[in-house]
């Protein structure tokens, strides 16, 4: 069980190790971690901390993509959740209520997306586009167009504080990652989600309630995005409806894809997606630390994506397979294929 899980994430671990290696080369002090003023400091800690929003989004996005869907609205949900949290504390309520309100807002957004996809049968990319467009407007409506700043220490603690010396965002994404992974893997939920993504027809004929499960995965995605939104807002002590979470939906999708999860749904690994999020963050760090102008960040990121995608594309995979097959001895046994597969 453990060995097979390790094998699944081996490529991601390898890429991450390479990225950290490059980081060490350009900045030898990269791996050093210090404990000062009751807080851990170090570049490695920064990677884990800065990567928190993408990592959180990647958790929900992994589940959505496993069902053959996609959630474009998470960036906008970040803005909404941040705005809601800020609004609640500015109005004089405690941070508990703010967190609760923000998460509820995320869940409502998720349910909206889920209903469009599961019951109105609108393509996921189209369905979530609606909220992607309107979401920032809603967030601005809540903040009334300003950057809504706040000073509530409890809320700030969620984004900029520490618990036992460890930055809170790290604990949040690790915790949520572990909880969601445990739920989907310890129960049959993960398998049922995969079944829907692989073959929805067969799944429905086997009695799986695909409608409810679809709503559930978009709900989780909305929840994760709301959590990320609270962290992003707490980090800058304010809700910026225009820029909070901008383009993060794309980073999240990328993290899932780098995590080796197919955009066509099916088998998924949340751990691999989280590693994907860390890979993206360490790419950002290496560009920063190398003293390369930050403007190269996007170009390099784009080239890495293209490289990873090309390797993953069905055409190239097939060519690689043929290459390997032709270099092997000819008398190898053919893989078992049924007659139907040959005829289809």
């Amino acid at each position, binding site marked *: 069980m453990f060995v097979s899980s390790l094998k699944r994430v081996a490529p991601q671990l390898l890429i991450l190790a390479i990225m950290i290696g490059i980081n060490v080369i350009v900045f030898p002090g990269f791996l050093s971690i210090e404990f000062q003023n009751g807080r851990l400091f170090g570049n490695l800690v920064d990677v884990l901390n800065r990567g928190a929003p993408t990592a959180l989004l990647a958790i929900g996005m992994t589940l959505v993509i496993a069902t053959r869907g996609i959630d474009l609205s998470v960036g906008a949900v970040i803005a909404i959740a941040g705005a809601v949290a800020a609004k609640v504390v500015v109005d004089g309520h405690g941070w508990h209520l703010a967190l609760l309100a923000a998460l509820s807002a995320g869940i409502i957004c998720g349910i909206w997306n889920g209903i469009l996809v599961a019951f109105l049968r609108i393509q996921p990319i189209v369905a979530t586009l609606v909220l992607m467009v309107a979401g920032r407007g809603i967030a601005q409506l809540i903040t009334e167009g300003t950057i809504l700043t706040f000073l509530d220490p409890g809320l700030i603690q969620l984004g900029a504080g520490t618990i036992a010396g460890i930055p809170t965002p790290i604990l949040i994404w690790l915790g949520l990652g572990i909880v969601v992974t445990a739920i989907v893997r310890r129960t049959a939920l993960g*398998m049922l989600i995969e079944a829907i993504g*692989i073959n929805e*027809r067969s*799944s429905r004929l086997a009695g799986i309630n695909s409608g409810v499960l679809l709503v559930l995965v978009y709900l989780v995605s909305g929840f994760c995005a709301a959590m990320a939104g609270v962290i992003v807002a707490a980090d800058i002590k304010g809700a910026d409806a225009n820029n909070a979470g901008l383009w993060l939906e794309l980073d999240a999708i990328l993290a899932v894809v780098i995590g080796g999860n197919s955009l066509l749904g*099916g088998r998924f690994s949340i751990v691999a997606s989280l590693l994907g999020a860390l890979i993206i963050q360490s790419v950002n760090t290496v560009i920063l630390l190398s003293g390369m102008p930050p403007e190269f960040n996007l170009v390099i990121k784009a080239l890495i994506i293209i490289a990873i995608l090309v390797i993953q594309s069905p055409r190239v995979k097939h060519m690689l397979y043929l290459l390997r097959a032709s270099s092997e001895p000819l008398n190898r046994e053919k893989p*078992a294929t049924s007659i139907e597969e*040959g*005829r289809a």
Partner: protein
Amino acid sequence: MTSNSVEPVLRATGISKFFPGAIALDEVDINLHPGEVHALLGENGAGKSTLIKCLTGVYRRDGGSIFLAGEEINPRDTLHSQSLGIGTVYQEVNLLANLTVAENLFLGRQPTRFGLIDHKRMRRETDEILLGYGLEIDSSQLLSTYSVAVQQVVAIARAVELSGKVLILDEPTASLDRDEVNLLFAVIRELKARGLAIVFITHFLDQVFEISDRATIMRNGRVIETCRIADVTQTDVITMMLGRQLEAVTRERVHGTAGDVLVEFKGYGKRTVIEPFDLEIREGEVVGLAGLLGSGRTETSNLAFGAMAADQGEVRLRGEQVRIGNPREAIALKFALCPEDRKTDGIVGDLSVRENIILALQARSGWLRTLKRAQVQQLAEHYVRALDIRLASLDMPIRLLSGGNQQKVLLARWLATEPDFLILDEPTRGIDVGAHAEIISLIEELRKRGMALLVASSEMEELVAYSTRVVVLRERKQIGELHGAEITADNIVRAIAAEEEAA
């Protein structure tokens, strides 16, 4: 009208095609004559569509030659064969519903003026062409605004315009009603008069006898017979299609007393899919569903399981009225269905064998009540042993198994739910001889244990082997029922073919 003295326009000899582990076509010969409708007959898997795909270049054939108008041809793909003169029209109209009728007819070769498409001329020419088929419609409307029959004629018109020598019609009438079929036949007669060679593939024998001049009957990748339609009867054709090589084997009479009525369908049906039927299935009874492809076997199975919702009639389970609106409701009532198309409706390809086995049971108990790992393992191992499923590991994806083993895994999936009423649609399709026999004896064993079974099959011998009763379907209607000693392959064939008596 038909004359064999005329040189055939298309001559194919020794066409062979192999798939991994199977021979799909074995040295098939076929000759098509101009001005003749040639029916291609056979049950599913007989090799009809493989032959067509070899002729039109969709598949690369492994042996044999094709001559068109005396010259040897090697079509690379559909487009190439079309340009050579062989046009094909499929049951699912291969046209674009989002374009207008005229655009569909002229896509890729639109008349232009000053480099721009001349819509007026295109419409005028379309109207002229369609009028030649007796069709008078507004060709500037979207294709999707017209019925399938009209779309079918437009597809034929396009194929004829582009090809003009051979026209292959693959199940063109499958989704048409009687009036529409008549209109389509008028078009076919017109084309015949123009001298086209037409291949007509269908499962409706009445239609074959109505429109065809000759027929080639295939079974198991071989040509059984090519004959003039005027020289044979429907019974002859069905016998040739189904084959009865096992006839000598005497049947062990299935006795055993059937128990109480378990499920009862009354006036159950769905418009345009299957006519309302009455059907009751007792505990410890196997009811066979016989009929040719397209007769409503699969539709009956799907309706009984809620895979398709009925729009009339009622169901009673042990005398109490129940509702089966979707598979989940059926599963909750301890119904189960092994579907005909394993690949699209049955297996979840990338999931492991173990997961495929427990899928329905897990879905029924809900994800909150997850089956214990030990229980899952025990269930999976039990069924692998009981059904003799051959596999390297329970962790391997089910799509890597052979057809027979996939079928057994699906049976295991449903047996794990301990159903009271098990529906099997073509349980032995596409599986090897060994697994075939095992599944038949399994059905018998399940019956003995008191389960109620409904089994749809195209294999007469098989139905004879396990059925306590056989319900015969024809053209989406139940037309008869055979009991006890009446159940023989001969009688079933006769019942299916029974033209006048049944009507």
